[in-house]
């Protein structure tokens, strides 16, 4: 297994000279490394290429040039949840166990009940999943993504519709998972505070480029990159003017 230049975490996957054009937008990533067992955050303004990069990792779209070195990671070990998750035309329970079913894994009813109870969905197990509120749908999609214990989880704005209590609960759950059996996360979120608290490493996207990678402190507070400073200034103004 390869070791990063800092010698801390083994490399999980690497995007090399990756290019993808969608209409007028072009994503160009020279070298982006996703290290194993830590929480990565993709930060940047709308349309900066965060979701496109995530879709490339998930092989939902194919690059025009360059390659992704998965380093032994299989696509079936990666999962992604989005802001508007796709829920099956079925019950909450059926949605939750779907990844286990397709893997032929045994469904442990006790574990399912515990997971649902953690987010107050235990009474809704038999409910039609699409009749849940948007926040509940996001919780369900997160649980569904985690239930089969993937090696890489991409969370694309999935926590955006959740109430603060649920976000805290998810944060606790993620940190708890990281303590017990670390997995690799890619969190895409506009909530900088949330990214700062959770992520071990942030990658700042601007106009289809990754302009900086580093710890939350390095990126959000110490960087002198004009793109980051402008973004931070806008975020500050947003907070001041409701």
């Amino acid at each position, binding site marked *: 297994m390869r070791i990063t230049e800092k010698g801390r975490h083994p490399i999980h996957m690497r995007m090399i000279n990756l290019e993808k054009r969608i209409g007028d937008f072009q994503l160009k990533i020279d070298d982006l490394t996703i290290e194993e067992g830590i929480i990565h955050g993709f930060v940047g303004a709308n349309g900066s290429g965060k979701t496109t990069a995530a879709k490339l990792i998930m092989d*939902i779209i194919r690059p025009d040039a360059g390659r992704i070195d998965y380093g032994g990671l299989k696509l079936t070990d990666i999962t992604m949840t989005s802001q508007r*998750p*796709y829920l099956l*035309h079925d019950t909450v329970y059926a949605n939750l166990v*779907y990844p286990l079913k397709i893997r032929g894994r045994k469904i442990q009813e006790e574990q399912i009940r515990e997971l649902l109870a953690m987010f107050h969905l235990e009474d809704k197990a038999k409910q*039609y999943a699409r009749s849940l509120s948007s926040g509940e749908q996001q919780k369900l999609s997160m649980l569904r*993504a985690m239930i089969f214990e993937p090696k890489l989880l991409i969370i694309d704005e999935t926590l955006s519709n959740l109430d603060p209590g649920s976000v805290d609960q998810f944060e606790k759950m993620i940190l708890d998972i990281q303590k017990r059996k670390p997995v690799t996360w890619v969190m895409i979120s506009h909530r900088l505070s949330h990214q700062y608290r959770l992520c071990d490493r942030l990658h700042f996207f601007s106009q289809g480029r990754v302009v900086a990678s580093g710890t939350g402190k390095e990126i959000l507070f110490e960087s002198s990159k004009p793109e980051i400073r402008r973004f931070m200034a806008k975020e500050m103004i947003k907070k001041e003017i409701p």
Partner: protein
Amino acid sequence: MNMIEKLVSSLFSDVGVYDAIRVTLCMSVCSTLLSSVIGIAFGLMLERFSFPGKRIVVRINRTLMGVPPVVVGLVVYMLIMRRGPLGFLGILFTVRGMILAQTLIITPIICGMTYSYAVKAAPAVRVFAKTMGASRLQTSILLIREMKYELYFAMISGFGRSISEVGAVMLVGGNIKGNTRTMTTAIALLKSQGIFHEGLTLGLLLLGMAFVIQCLADFFRREVREDENY
């Protein structure tokens, strides 16, 4: 003679209404099942694969969705008549011949509806399946499962078309009493004999059956919720 047969015979003149109902249902059910297998498979394949001339194929199918049944009847008649290329099958003036004609009429309808639904639903289902790590086969099964209400609706629409069709079955079946006479061809016969009230009664019976089918279709349509998130 069973009770229902006696009741039906007492209501109508000697045009073989009971047999007509039996033939109508047999023909409609068989042709719908055959068309569903072919139409759904082609509709899904049309959505899945890109090939040169695909748009033309889609347009041709859409045109065939509205083809006058009597034209199909004529073509099938020419194919299966004794001197026709399929004359050796010996299915002219039989229920099997009528099923063939009906299948040709309904298949483009089911195929077209399946294709339209799949174009809307498949991209989201495929992305979801990929994020879940599903195989190709699992993705295909999931797509059919996710479209089941739409597919039922397409099948019921095909059945509705089949049960109410008259032109093609008249040409291919020959309206033979007790053999290939259907409810619609019986109505046409009653009209030509001037027995309007019986024709109307039979028409109302057919309308009742069509109503039940529409109720089923509505039930499935209601099941397809509007609040879909992709």
